[in-house]
C-alpha cells in the first residue's frame, strides 16, 4: 500500500514540477510575485515591470499602438494561411483566390480577415499618429521615435498597397496601375522607378512577383525591425502618459 502511495506522491510531484517549470511564480497574488513574473517572462518582457497608472490609462493611449501591433500579428498569421494556397503568377493567382473563397476550409473567412485587418491597420496606425500628435508626445526626448513611427506608417501603406495587387482581379491590376503611374511623374528618376517597381512597362507577371516578394518578405521584415526599434525606444525614452 505504501508503495502505491509513494508512487502517486511521486507522480503528483512530477506533474507539479512540469506545471511549475512553465508557470514559475504561481498566481500573482502579491506585488512581488507579479513583479517577478513580469521580469522573467519572455512574452511579458516587452513591458516595464512597474508602470505609473497614468501611463497606461486607456483614455490616453486608446490602445492604438498596441492594436496596430496586434493587427500586424493577425495579418502575419492569416497571411501565412493564404500563402499555403496562393501562387504569385498571372496563370494561377486569380484561380487560387477563387479557390480560397469557395473551396478551401475557412479560406473565405481568413481572406476576409486579412483584407479587413489590413484596412483596420491603416486606420489604427493613422489614429495612433493623431493621438501622439494631439498629446504632444513627440516632443523631446521622443523626436527620433516619432520619425521611426512615420516610417512605420509609410510601410503600413506600402504593405497594404502591395497586397492590393495579389488577387489579380480587375480591381487590383488597375488600382496598382494608377498607383504606380504616380511614380512616373518624378523628374528624371520617375520612369525608372516605375520600371524597377513593376519590372516592365505594364503591370504583369514581373509586377505580381515583385509585389508578392515585397508583400510577404521585404516590407514585413523592414516593418518588424522598425517596430523592434520603436518599442525599444518607447521603453528607453519612457512612456509619455500623465501630462
Amino acid at each position: 500500500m505504501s508503495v502505491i502511495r509513494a508512487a502517486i506522491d511521486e507522480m503528483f510531484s512530477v506533474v507539479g514540477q512540469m506545471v511549475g517549470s512553465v508557470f514559475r511564480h504561481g498566481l500573482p497574488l502579491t506585488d512581488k510575485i507579479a513583479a517577478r513574473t513580469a521580469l522573467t517572462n519572455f512574452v511579458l518582457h516587452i513591458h516595464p515591470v512597474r508602470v505609473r497608472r497614468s501611463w497606461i490609462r486607456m483614455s490616453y493611449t486608446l490602445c492604438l499602438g498596441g492594436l496596430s501591433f496586434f493587427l500586424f500579428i493577425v495579418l502575419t498569421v492569416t497571411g501565412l494561411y493564404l500563402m499555403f494556397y496562393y501562387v504569385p503568377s498571372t496563370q494561377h493567382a486569380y484561380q487560387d483566390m477563387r479557390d480560397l473563397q469557395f473551396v478551401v476550409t475557412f479560406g473565405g473567412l481568413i481572406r476576409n480577415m486579412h483584407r479587413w485587418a489590413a484596412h483596420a491597420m491603416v486606420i489604427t496606425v493613422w489614429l495612433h499618429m493623431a493621438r501622439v500628435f494631439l498629446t504632444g508626445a513627440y516632443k523631446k526626448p521622443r523626436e527620433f521615435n516619432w520619425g521611426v513611427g512615420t516610417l512605420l506608417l509609410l510601410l503600413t501603406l506600402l504593405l497594404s498597397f502591395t497586397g492590393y495587387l495579389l488577387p489579380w482581379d480587375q480591381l487590383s491590376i488597375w488600382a496598382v496601375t494608377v498607383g504606380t503611374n504616380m511614380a512616373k511623374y518624378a523628374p528624371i528618376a520617375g520612369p525608372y522607378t516605375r520600371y524597377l517597381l513593376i519590372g516592365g512597362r505594364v503591370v504583369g507577371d514581373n509586377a505580381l512577383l515583385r509585389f508578392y516578394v515585397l508583400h510577404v518578405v521585404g516590407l514585413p521584415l523592414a516593418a518588424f525591425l522598425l517596430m523592434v526599434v520603436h518599442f525599444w525606444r518607447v521603453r528607453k525614452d519612457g512612456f509619455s502618459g500623465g501630462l
Partner: protein
Amino acid sequence: MATEARDRIAARERVEARRRQVEAPSTVRDDSDDEMIVSFPEFVFKEFIATVAMTVFLIIVSIWLQAPLLGKANPGMTPNPSKAPWYFLGLQELLSRFPPLMAGVAFPTFVIVLMILVPFLDRNPSRRPSERKVAIILFALYTTVVVALVIIGTFFRGHEFVWDWGWVLGNPQTCGGKPC
C-alpha cells in the same frame, strides 16, 4: 494524523505571516494616477481585453462583409474610372487637380519630410492642449483636408474621374472604385 495536519496549517500560517511582513508595500495603495503598479497582470489584462475585442470585431466583420473579388485581371480592358486604393485616393484627387510633378511627387515627399521634422519645427515645449492651439488647429486642418480628399475620391468621382453626385442623388456611376 490530526496533529500532523494542524502542525502543517500552523507552519503555513507562520510562512504567510512572514511573507506579509517582508513584502509589506512601502507605500499604501491609493489608486491615484501617480501610483506605481506592477504591469502584470493589470496592464497585461487591459491589453488582452483590447486584443480579444479586436479579434471578435474582425471575425464578425469578416463573416458579414465579403472582401471584393471582381473578374480576372484584363490588361486590355481599363475600367472607367480606375481608382487607387482608398488611402491613396487623396493623392489621386490631387493629381486630377494639380500638375502631376507637384501632386504626385513634390507634395507627398514634402508631407513625409514635414512629418518627420514636426518635433524639430514645433518649438513649443508645452504638451497641454490649451497651450498648443496653433499646432492642434494646423493638425485638425491637415486631417480635414486628407479625409475630405479621400471621401471625394471614393464617393464623388465617377466616369473619367469627373465629379459625380450619384452617392447623394442616387444611381452612382461607381461603388468605391468598383463598377456597381
